[in-house]
Every structure is written in C-alpha cells, then in structure tokens.
C-alpha cells in the first residue's frame, strides 16, 4: 500500500472497488506505473488542481466540444462535464476487456446473421422466438439480405461496470449507433495539454488513431470490387442534432465527407453524393441516423433525413451501411439476458465478461422475484435510453416502490430487474476536495473483417454523491481513461 500524505490523504473509497487504489480491503498489488501516477496525483495541490480544471473546462468551450440544447428561444451550448483525475486501467485488466468485448461482438454478429437467415438459434429454442420476431427492433425486411463480411455491427459500445470484488460485468450492449467516442479522443488531447507533467514517462496506450482504424474497417467491408479506395461518407441528421459535434469529429478523423440525406441520391440501385462536379458514387455510409429514418420509401414515409431508394441499393449489395439495419434487436435489454447463452451457442465458449444477473419481468418467475424483492433490485424499462425510468430499489421511497409495482403489474414485459451492483469508484475532484464517485466504462469496438477494441473507452462518472447513474442527462460527466502499457 502506498502512503498517501497529500491530496489523496482524506480520500475514502468506502466499500467499493477503487479504479486507482484497488480492492476496498487494501489488498491489491499496485503496478509500478500505477504507483507512479498515484504518487504524482497525491503531490498535487488542491487549489492549483482546481485552477487547471477550470482552464480545461474553458478549453472545452473554446474548442466547441459541446452539445447544443435547443429551447424555444435560443440554442445553449453545454459541455459534458470533465473530471481531470484520470481513470487508470492496468494492462492485465484491459486484456480481459479486450478479449471479452471481441467475443461479445463476434457473438452479436453471428446472432444477427442467424436471425436474419436460418434462425437456427430460435429453432433450437435457445432464445424464445417471440422475443426476437416480436421485437420492435427486429426488421423483417432484412431477412435474406446479404451483407459484406457478415458484419452487422461495425461500431459497438459495450457498457461495463466493476463490482466490489473487482470483476467486470456487462451492463448493456449498444449495437445501433453508440456515441461518445469523440470525448475519448478529445479528453486525451485535453489531458495532454493541461497535465503534461502527470503523463510524462508513463506508458499510456494511444487513442488518437480511432478514425484511421474505423476508416480501414469500413473499407474492408465495402461492396465487392470497391474495397480498394472506396468512397466513405458520414451521414448525419444535420447541424441541429445534439451529437453534431461528434459527427464532425468522426468525419474529420476519418477524412471523409460529412453529408446529410439531401446530399445523397439513389438511382438504379446505386447511391451517389451530389458534388459541384456532378454525382459521385458512394460505397460505404457510416450513418448516425436511426433505421426508421434511413429511407422514406422503405421505412418511415415522413422521414426528411433519409435517402429514397437507399434500402434498395443496400439490398442489391451496392452500398454498405454501418451499422447494418435491424441491429437494435441485439442490444435489447431482454435479449441481453440471453447473451451468455448466445455466446455459448455460436462460439462454444464461456462468456469472458459476465452479465449482471437479470430477471426478465415478462417471464412469470422473473416477475414474481422482482415483486418480492423490489426494494433490493434495480428495475429498468427495456425500451428507454439515457438512464430514464431507472428505479434503484434500496434508495427509493415507499411511494416510488409502490408506483413501480403497479407499473410492473400493468406492463411486465416492459421491465427487467437486476441486483444493485456496487459500481466501482474513482477519485474525483469536487468543490471540497477529492471524493469517490461511481464510474462505468464504454469501450468501443470497431469491426470490418476483424474486431479492434479502442484501448480505453469512455469513462462516465456520476458526479452526484452516491449516485449510480452515470448518464449525462442525469448529472454524469466523463474522465480520461488511461490503459497502461505495462
């Protein structure tokens, strides 16, 4: 154990695993590199640290690393609050994440290929048929559609938490259009500028080649015959989208044009981009708009964001979409519960990353267990994102518990329940000093013909004391994530 005399001397990790110091009983062995970082942090002075944190925040505004919230009268720029104390991941821990994420992505892709073709997993009864075919994110039109490399999920974000014993657990899969990777890269740039002294001589794995890796992966799965120097574009809903900054970031880092639906056109099964010099064929589209809005001819008729005829071109194999259409069925919270079995089914391997045990309220025994133990469980609606509608049993009032019981009775299939995971904590700069705050991790996996996992990922931190909800809409911020080289 390291003797802490300075900044960290008053820091108490409590009963949780600490991402910096390890197990709550202090029995963790700290690597030499981690010890160097801990000592450097401990030597920092609180006042100077706050000053630097403020400078970092200003920089985020100046560089416009912001999302825009539109109200009736004006547009307000917000930053994702940034905590300057980094989250450290050892090389050994990242190895587990890396292999675990790769395994999960492989299983998700095999699952999607199967359910849109032979549906063996349904016939074998491993996953209930109605859960897949009756899922609102299941896209019947994708049945029998062939896509390059059988890669459905090119960009996958898997939310991982750490339990009190230090083990990683998957909280949810994001297989549609996971966002947040721009913060990973920008947070690192920010740290390199504001804390060069902290990083000096410490081997931290780089994150800045994400754009290049993504481009290469997408080029690998361009339509047949177009893999050599394909035209890749990023399709954005436009400047009013709150994630527009990320779209700009990705287009810039990949070196590809940023387009909106009106910049594209489909003719005779081929997608073109309108340029001042005429039409240019498009081979791969990294789309940041939902399935429903992609093509008014095939999906929602009222979509102003999409391209008429895009789906036809897609079915003919003339354009690659990343991610594929209909991937939402794989990251559904109900399917999530079956993920260990899905991994076993396709890969014949045990899951490297465990799920959080999940009770499906749509099933009678799951519902009964949830009703009986609601005060000990986290109850989540399956269809909501952004941390909305999450009830943390042990922290809820009696009225809140009763309300949720009623909701469970009315619409059980809409909910799942999980035990409360004692999310790990990280030292975080608060107004009175350094305090523990709960964190999660979203590593990003990029898949063309093979899968690459960005070393690190987005660490989200629940800035409200004791809060377990890290979403930015619920008072969450982010941290730079350092994967150590050794």
């Amino acid at each position: 154990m390291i003797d802490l005399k300075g900044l960290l001397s008053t820091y108490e990790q409590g009963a949780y695993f600490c991402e910096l110091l390890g197990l709550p009983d202090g029995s963790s062995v700290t690597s030499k590199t981690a010890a160097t970082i801990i000592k450097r942090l401990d030597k920092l002075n609180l006042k100077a640290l706050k000053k630097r944190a403020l400078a970092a925040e200003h920089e985020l505004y100046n560089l416009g690393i912001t999302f825009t919230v539109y109200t009736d009268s004006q547009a307000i720029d917000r930053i994702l609050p940034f905590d300057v104390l980094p989250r450290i991941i050892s090389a050994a821990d990242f190895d587990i994440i890396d292999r675990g994420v790769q395994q999960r992505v492989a299983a998700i892709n095999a699952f999607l290929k199967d359910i849109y073709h032979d549906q063996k997993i349904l016939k074998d009864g491993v996953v209930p048929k109605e859960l897949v075919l009756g899922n609102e994110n299941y896209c019947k039109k994708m049945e029998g559609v062939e896509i390059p490399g059988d890669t459905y999920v090119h960009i996958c974000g898997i939310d991982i938490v750490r339990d009190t014993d230090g083990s990683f657990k998957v909280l949810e899969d994001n297989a549609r259009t996971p966002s947040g990777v721009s913060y990973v890269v920008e947070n690192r740039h920010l740290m390199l500028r504001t804390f060069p002294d902290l990083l000096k001589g410490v081997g931290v794995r780089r994150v800045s080649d994400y754009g290049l890796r993504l481009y290469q992966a997408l080029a690998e799965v361009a339509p047949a015959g177009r893999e050599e120097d394909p035209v890749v574009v990023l399709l954005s809903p436009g400047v009013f989208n709150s994630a527009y900054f990320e779209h700009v970031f990705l287009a810039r880092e990949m070196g590809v044009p940023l387009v909106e639906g009106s910049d594209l056109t489909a003719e005779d099964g081929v997608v073109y981009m309108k340029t001042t010099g005429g039409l240019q064929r498009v081979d791969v589209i990294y789309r940041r708009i939902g399935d429903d809005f992609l093509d008014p001819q095939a999906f929602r008729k009222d979509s102003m964001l999409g391209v008429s005829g895009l789906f036809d071109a897609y079915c003919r194999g003339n354009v690659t979409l990343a991610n594929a259409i209909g991937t939402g069925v794989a990251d559904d919270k109900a399917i999530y519960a079956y993920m260990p079995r899905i991994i076993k089914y396709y890969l014949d391997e045990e899951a490297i990353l465990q799920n959080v045990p999940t009770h499906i309220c749509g099933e009678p025994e799951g519902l009964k267990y949830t009703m009986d133990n609601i005060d000990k469980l986290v109850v989540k609606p399956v269809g909501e994102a952004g941390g909305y509608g999450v009830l943390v049993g042990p922290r809820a009032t009696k009225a809140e518990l009763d309300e949720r019981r009623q909701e469970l009775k009315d619409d059980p299939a809409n909910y799942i329940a999980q035990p409360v995971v004692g999310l790990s904590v990280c030292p975080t700069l608060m107004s009175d000093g350094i305090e523990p705050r709960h964190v999660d991790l979203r590593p990003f996996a990029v898949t063309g013909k093979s899968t690459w996992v960005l070393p690190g990922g987005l660490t989200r931190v629940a800035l409200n004391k004791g809060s377990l909800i890290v979403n930015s809409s619920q008072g969450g911020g982010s941290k730079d994530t350092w994967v150590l080289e050794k």
Partner: protein
Amino acid sequence: MERADSLARLLEVTETHSRDEHGDQDWKLILEVNGDLDHFRQEYGKVTAVDVVKFYTIDLNNATSLASSVAYARENARSLRHLISTEMWSQINVMHSRFRDVKNKDIQPRRLAGFCSTIKESCQAHTGITEATLYRDQAYLFYWIGKMVERADQASRLLDVGFRRALKLAHSDDNAGESLSHWTGLLRSVGGYQAYRRTHPIRLRAREVTGFVLTNKSFPRSVMYCLQEAHDDVSKLINEHGVETAHPALQELEVALSQLQNADIQQLVNSDLHEFADTLQQQLITFTQRLAEGCFGLDKQD
C-alpha cells in the same frame, strides 16, 4: 465576418462624426443606406444615436447587426466544421461566446470606438488564420468569393453613406476644413487613408476619393479589386476544378466589372452615385444567386 468588419468600421466612423452638430442625422443615414429605416422605426420608433447603435450591435432581432453576423458566422462555421481548420473554428467560437456577454454599457459612446476596434481585430484575426490554415480547395475558393463580394458590397455602401453626408454638408455653411475631414473619415472607414495618400499626395476631393474606392486596382477594399479577385476565383473554379456550372455566375460578374471599368467618375460624383451603388449591389445579389444555382443546386429564384 466580412460584414461584421465593415459594419464595425461604419459605426466607428459615424460615431466619430456624430460628435459634431449633425448628430442624429448621421445615424439616420446609416439606416437609409442599409435599407433598414422602416424596420428600425417599427422596433424603436424615433431615430436616436443610442438606439441605432444598439440596433446594429447587440440586437439579435436585427439580422444585419454585429451580433447576428457573428452568430451566423459561428453557425456556418459549426456546420462546415469538418471542412475548415480547427483554428478557424475555435477563433470564431471564442469571438461568438465573448460577444454573447456584451452588455448595454459596453456600447456606450465612450466605449463604442474600442468595442468596434475589438470586432475589427477579431475579424482580421479570422482572415489571417484562414489565410494561414485553410486548405486551398474548392471550399477555399467559395470562401474567398463570398468574402470579396461582401466586401465590394460594403465598400459601395460606405461610399454611398459618405456621399450623402457630403451632400448635406455642401448644403450647409461648411468650410473647407470640415469637408476635408469628411473625406479623410470616409477613407479611414475603408482602411484606405494611407493608401490613398500614397497615390494622391495632394488632392483630397470627391472625385478622386470616389475613383479610389470604386476603381483602384491595388487597394484591397476597392470595389474593382474585390470583383477582380472574385472573377479570378470563379475562373479557377471553372478551369482548375471543372465546375462548368459556374459560367452563368461568371458572366454576371463580367457585366458588373465592365460597368465599373467604363464608369464616368465625374458623372457619378455629380449625380448618379447612389443609383450606381444600388445597381452594383443588385448585380452582386444576382451573381450570388447564379453561383448558388449552378454549384449547389439551389432553386432558381426570380
């Protein structure tokens, strides 16, 4: 950014002049030249120095105010952020966020000149950053064409304001000294006083000043210089980048250039300057429309 630069110049020079007895008349002139008089009266009623300054600086309901221009520039930069350099974006973004904090007290008469200087400096920093960092492709050419067209338009407006003021002076019992300071002020507002003195060491009269602002080939804010630059860049779009659809726009520009070359400056000074400026501004609008139709597939407007 170019519009903000020019407007800051116009406000600064008007503020300096309006310290004499002509006062509010000068402020009314700006409104007339920009075609904003009706709009202003609806919003504010009586023309006063304080309100006109407010109207042109921090009033976001006025689409031509400094605040609006900077907000548009920032919004454009935001949507084109993948094409421009990070430095360009960051500078505009910072300028915009500083502008949002501007209060009424910052635009009081004694602070206005300083405020306008800051705006000008920011606009010029933008130009410098662009020159030093923007990749020279079609986007750059379109950027520069837009800048030159805006600058030519604003130069014609500044000249128009200056002229109307000169006419008013001529009708009152002014003396030679004041007339001289008037033309000096006008040249300063286009940033051309020193350049003018180098070419015309002796004479400072309506005819020479008008000729200089309209047709000088070497002064970077003259109408002729700007249109020539725009012409060169549209030609480059066609010849080097194969944007054949820019031809109609090029023709429109050539009409404007030839009118400028053949203009009888003495005649303009005597009577037709306002009309000439109006025609020129209309031609620039048509040019911009042709370019948008040809290159960005925007609908034809009549």
